[in-house]
């Protein structure tokens, strides 16, 4: 056997020994290597999370839908006559019972003026 062949055979035996050790890797080390891989994958830089992009579009769609529904409630638009009055009612600090009985108080006031 030539010098080169002897060297190749020697290196081959060393490789065989190293391969064998790799095959006999204990469970604990294998588990730790798996955990290391998972940790590395979690460090993957992400410019923008996918869920955020999807969530953003969903929120925009829901907002748009809400505006459209409110806009078209009872067929009213901001320039319809009752719209401003409704807004005033919603924003007033008066007792809601007073507002509900407003017609009665107006009628009472008229009656007193007549008397």
């Amino acid at each position, binding site marked *: 056997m030539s010098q080169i062949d002897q060297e190749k055979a020697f290196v081959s035996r*060393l490789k*065989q020994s190293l*391969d064998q050790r790799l095959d006999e890797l204990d469970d604990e*080390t294998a588990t730790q290597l798996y955990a*290391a891989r998972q*940790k*590395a994958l979690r460090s993957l830089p992400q410019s923008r999370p996918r869920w955020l992009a999807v969530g953003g579009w969903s929120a925009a769609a829901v907002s748009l839908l809400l505006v459209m529904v409110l806009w078209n409630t009872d067929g009213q638009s901001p320039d319809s006559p009752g719209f401003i009055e409704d807004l005033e009612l919603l924003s007033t600090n008066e007792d809601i019972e007073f507002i509900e009985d407003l017609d009665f108080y107006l009628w009472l006031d008229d009656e007193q003026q007549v008397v």
Partner: protein
Amino acid sequence: MALVATGNRDEALDIIQDAMIKLVKNYAGRPEEEWPPLFYRIVQSTIRDWYRRQQVRSRVMSFMGLDKNEDEFTLEDFPDPGVPQADEAMNNTQAARLLDRALHRLPLRQQQVFMLRAWEGQSTAETAQAMRCTEGTVKTHYSRAVHTLREILGDYRP
């Protein structure tokens, strides 16, 4: 490879962990076929960084008189290749330990080249790329590593 270089399981796992994170952070966008050579390169440079830190630490400990070379091998750890062993049936564990110690005795660069070429099956060019050196340097390191290992291990039989 990291285990052979450090001789310590936990240190080796730390090196691999660091290398994996560096690969993912810096090269996740690269084509998949480029990952293995990049990973080898990162592992090799991480091992070299570890080795330099160890040398500094060793010098400081030595300066302070606290050095304690528990891992230092003596000639008795290695069988004389010229003399037949009393127990010819040397078991695999013993053989693996001897191989470990022999690899550990190689200079770091020779050890890295040997592991990449002989064990990982990397070509001279691939090894040069991983080691960031010329192919000529790889050939020199490999030749010296094999020569030294043969001197230490003789007719190694796992």
